[in-house]
């Protein structure tokens, strides 16, 4: 996945403006951000600083109001909705704060879901899902419903779902926010392992302890990058 010196993600002067009741709110202003392949970046900042907006743009859930965004060297800022969905499905894995497993689907089906959207064959899906579940230690719970799992287990399944399609980058939005410290620590350990195995991760977190796990911490304030620290190994 390494494209030489080219970053995996390159944001140039990205802005995001929301119009509410004729009031302009600048959620992001002049964001410049590069994320290299294999990097583990944490994004930190106070509430309302634009972390989630930035993650939405990185995850192609939202489009920037200005600037450019290239993913793996291709401009993706102004793609159509279906095209963004296709890239999201193949290149991006999401991990949410509240797990967001679909309650009516089993663990296996939850992990399989993005692969189904990709149009992957049943055999390939089975192999990828099994592999992802084994990787997060949830292979034995494949037939369970999310409601039958603990919070920590549910987040592991969510990580497996994000991993299964072998995306270019994992985007994690406060992945430990809904977990107790023990389960939170376990999930962070899992992310560390994934990173060690070569995964690119971009994580939004409030918790400075978990931010320390990353190679880099990007601090946002009022929609601007105010600090970009590389953490010593």
């Amino acid at each position: 996945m390494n494209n030489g010196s080219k970053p995996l993600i390159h944001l140039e002067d990205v802005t995001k403006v929301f119009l509410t009741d004729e009031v302009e709110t600048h959620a992001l202003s002049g964001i410049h951000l590069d994320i290299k392949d294999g990097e583990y970046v944490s994004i930190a900042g106070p509430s309302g600083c634009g972390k989630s907006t930035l993650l939405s743009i990185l995850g192609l859930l939202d489009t920037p109001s200005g600037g450019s965004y290239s993913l793996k060297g291709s401009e993706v800022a102004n793609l159509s909705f279906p095209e963004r969905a296709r890239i999201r499905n193949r290149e991006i894995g999401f991990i949410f704060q509240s797990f967001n497993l679909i309650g009516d689907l089993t663990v296996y089906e939850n992990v399989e879901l993005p692969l189904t959207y990709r149009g992957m064959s049943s055999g390939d899906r089975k192999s990828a899902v099994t592999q992802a579940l084994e990787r997060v230690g949830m292979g034995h719970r494949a037939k369970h419903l999310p409601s039958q799992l603990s919070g920590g287990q549910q987040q592991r399944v969510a990580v497996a779902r994000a991993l299964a399609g072998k995306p270019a980058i994992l985007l994690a939005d406060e992945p430990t926010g809904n977990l107790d410290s023990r389960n939170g620590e376990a999930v962070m350990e899992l992310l560390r392992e994934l990173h060690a195995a070569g995964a690119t991760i971009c994580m939004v977190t409030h918790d400075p302890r978990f931010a320390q796990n990353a190679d880099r911490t990007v601090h946002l304030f009022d929609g601007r990058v105010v600090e970009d620290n590389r953490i010593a190994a």
Partner: protein
Amino acid sequence: MINDLRFAFRLLLKNRTYTLVAIAALAFSVGANTAIFSAINSLLLRPLPVEEIDRLVYPIALREGFDPFGSSLIEYVAYRDRGHSFVSSGAAAQRSFNLTGHGEPERVRGATVMATYLTTLGVKPALGRIFTADEDRPSGPAVVLISYEFWQRHFGGKAGVIGETLNLEGRNYNIVGVLPPGFDLPGAAEVWLPLQANIDSLPLVERAASNYEIAARLKPGVPLKQADTELKAIARQLEGEYPEFRRGWGVKVISLRQQLLGDLEGRVHKALFALMGGVGFLLLICCANIANLQLARGIARERELALRRALGASRGRLVRQLFTESILLAVLGGIGGLLLAYWLVPALAALNPIQGISLAAFLRHFEIDGRVLSFALVVSLLAGVISGLLPALKGAGADELMPRIKQGDQRSGGAASRQWLNSLIVAEIAIAMTLLICGGLIVQTFQRLQHVDLGFHPKNLLTLKMTLPESKYSEYQKRVAFNDQVLDRIKNLSGVVSAGSTTNIPLEREIAYDARFEIEGRVPSNPNEVLITSHRIVSPDYLKTIGITLMSGRFIDENDRAGSLPVVVISEELARQAWPGQDPLGKRLKRVRAGQTFPWMTVVGVVKNVKEDLFNYRINRPVWYVPYAQVENHFPVNLVVRTKNDPTSLTAAAREAIRAIDPDQPVSSVMTMNTNLSGVLVTERFSAVLMAALAGSGLLLASIGLYGVMAYSVNQRTSEIGVRVALGAQPRHVFQLIMGHGMKLTLLGVAIGLLAAWSATRLLVSLLFGLGARDATTFSAITLLLGIVGLLACYLPARSAMRLNPVEALRYE
């Protein structure tokens, strides 16, 4: 309780859209139920001016074992003397009389009755008295009873009417009593004369004449079925005792109410109960919709209810609170329903389904009385209970309080709650499916009956009825001459195409004349074989006038006079029965009647089958037409006039033409043929219109319900949809997800509905015509229709799901 009510009011006011939708749905459903019940109340439940109506029955003579006909005095005596089921019985014959001396000569409907006919019915006169046994003896006094309405119309309700005289058919009768308001049995009688017959001394032919109707009162505790069995056995005895008159005849005992509705086969009863079932289904669909709305609201109110429990409210207390809200809603819906019913009832009355003409003041007047009001109240409360029970139990039943209190106003709606919503919508669709299939079958039946080939052309036909008084037209030649002169004059009127006369206007609600006959050279293989045909005595030009199609030979013409070769024109059905596969022209048949001899008649023409009998509309019965001039008879003379334009424009001219020949001759029932025919399919039209309306309403409610559930589901699944989009779902995946869910519910409802309809339609068999209870086309078409409606109901929610902004959707997490 007052607090509960106050809070319920406040909530309803707060959620105005929900309240209005729920009240409108309830009002619609309660209104429909109340309106249909008002019809049932008028037709089946309301008291009538007779005593203990549930014990009153009518033995109906069945010619050919199925064809309802008048009874004879032979039967009356046999049932009276040999039966053990009745405490009393009496016979009456419908007649009409020329009334003179009270302004314009008038033909009035009346009857000759046994004194016991009125005592059996338990009629209480409004004024004077009814007939005594002494007045009912042969050569008894000339006395008459008049109806309340006749008293009002002709005597202005004068108290001293008793003792005054009435001139009927040229004879004066003393008025001895005025019968109670609305009473007009038999038929639609306005005057009653005592029968004054010594039955035992009457000639057999007269005793055997099927001119009477018999009313009987069951002994206390004797069921109708027992009387029916007993009389059937007596009828079989009579077949053996009087084979020349009674062979092939049966009897069926029916209740007076059934008789009044003209409902020998119980079609009106079945149609009414099918409709009641239909509106019941509609109520269930409506309740399911309201329950769904309440469930959805209950899910949204989980936090409030959990808080109440946390503050110490018991589960029972919360159930009461929620139930109060449902009942309040139902009562408001009930009031709306009642207002709607006040508007619907007159429309329903205009579609009155009954064929009978007696006691019309009671049976044709639908109204909202105390019983209907009570029904509306019960239905409203029932709707409240049905729609409120589940949401109340579900809403008050939360055990884990803290998670619900913590959830704030986030959308929750767990799988179990969604399951209930899904189940209710599946039930709604299943009920709508059943309703639609039943409605479809009934509507198709009506359409098919409407398109039955009548065998004549009813457009531009005017009909007029006359009964020539025996006192003036005792000689048959005089009647023929009168008939010829009237027809000559009418044919010469401007705008008249042709004119003719007949003894029965096709499909009229009068006694239809029939004849037994035999075929030359054919000995019946079975002694019980009785050949019967509709017997019509017609003028030349009658067949041409009403537009009957000649298949072979010729019509009756001017040369078919008394003294010439007796001829007959027969229908295809008669030809098929008499000479299957042969040419009937030139063959002969003759009328058969005990004690009388009739000449052989030569078949000179064969016409296409004609619907002559109202009671045999659904089948083809043999008909023959014989020349008026060749058959001496005292039957009524009915004129049929074909016009170039609107037939009613000739009414005055036709009356004038008759008056010019005989100024004293009353003319009655002047109407177009189409007006006459409009009464033929009243029951079927009533059922078809209402079932179509109910089925359409059911479909509308179910589709709104499905739309509501799907919209609610999309709302509840916003977060899930956001996740799916984040995982790479394309818009079509989201669309398919919602459509798939909706269609799964629709198809499950359709499948259950198909099974339910498969069973329910069996109950409709006797109401159907020209198609089976499991008509594949209807089942397929309705399945397709519901499938399409399901697709449409799911489309909008699916489209809105497809357009969800993933970022906003994920904010719901």
